[in-house]
């Protein structure tokens, strides 16, 4: 599907352009939100909410779209899924699943709390992301590589470098504690 659509006419609020846009992208939006609908939220409601957001406040959200930066389909998929998540967040009670709580916080005999200050920038954003995906989301190296659009070997080396930094950091802090 090409992204050719008269955005200017759409933003001007022309009814024909809007109807054409709806008919062209409703299927995409439905596909995008299909896998995200939970907690009794109807997929049709989410689709309607996405279109509402797009045209709300004189097409404020639609005006932020820039064809030079990303394809319209890609952008709409992100907007649709983000809308679906927001709707779910509003409806579900504010509870944290027990799996999301680090084991150390759940331990009855908690380990002594670290008194060290966490150094800023010890790990790069990508290193943190790779470790998060590996240990929190239990993703495979190949899955991470595909999700980030990088080579699996890059994932491995990113993980390796991050671990070296963490080992070095905690070795130093443990040694400092023993001296005290």
């Amino acid at each position, binding site marked *: 599907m090409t992204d050719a659509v008269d955005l200017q006419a759409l933003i001007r609020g022309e009814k024909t352009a809007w109807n054409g846009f709806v008919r062209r992208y409703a299927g995409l939006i439905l596909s995008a939100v299909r896998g995200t609908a939970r907690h009794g939220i109807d997929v049709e409601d989410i689709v309607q909410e996405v279109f509402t957001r797009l045209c709300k406040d004189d097409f404020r959200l639609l005006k932020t779209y820039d064809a030079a930066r*990303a394809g319209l389909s890609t952008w709409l998929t*992100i907007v649709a899924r983000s809308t679906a998540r927001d709707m779910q967040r509003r409806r579900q009670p504010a509870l944290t699943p027990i799996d999301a709580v680090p084991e150390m916080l759940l331990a009855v005999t908690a380990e002594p709390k670290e008194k060290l200050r966490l150094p800023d920038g010890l790990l790069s954003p990508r290193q943190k992301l790779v470790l998060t995906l590996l240990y929190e989301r239990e993703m495979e190296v190949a899955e991470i590589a595909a*999700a980030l659009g990088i080579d699996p070997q890059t994932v491995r080396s990113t993980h390796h470098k991050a*671990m070296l930094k963490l080992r070095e950091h905690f070795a130093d802090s443990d040694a400092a504690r023993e001296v005290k």
Partner: protein
Amino acid sequence: MDSKGAGATDRRLWQRWQALGGKPRAAEPDALSLAAYAEGRLTEAEAEAVEAWLAAAPEGLDDIVAARAFDQRPPRLVYEHILSNACDLVPGAAPANIANLMLRRQPPRWRNALAWSSIAASLVCASMVGFSMGSDAYANLAGTQTADSASEVLGTPPSLDTLDNYFSDDSGT
């Protein structure tokens, strides 16, 4: 590191880091930045900002994966009432020329009536032909059933005297 992840030591090290508050706090990028990231159009610095947020909110990665996979899945069919509801969000009427085109596309009433009449006539003809053929077939079937008493159908065979008289007729016929 095995294919499933790292060893238990590495995992504990990560959890220790997390317990220290290693979870990054980064502002959520806008949808356009995420879309650009999905398409690999960001600079290294911009991509780093997105990855910092993803590390704190890894569920956002699902959106990026879904956006990348868009080309591999056909769009779903949408019910007309969903389209209609979404179209109604923007007020206004369809332009006159479109409405005229739609009207022109509708066939005139007399053509509809003619079409229905033709269909009805065809049905009547078909049933009459069918009835006629059925009757003939029944009649033939009745003849077959009485075929073993051939004398009833063909009549009594002529006697030899009758045949002699016939061939000796003066008329010569």
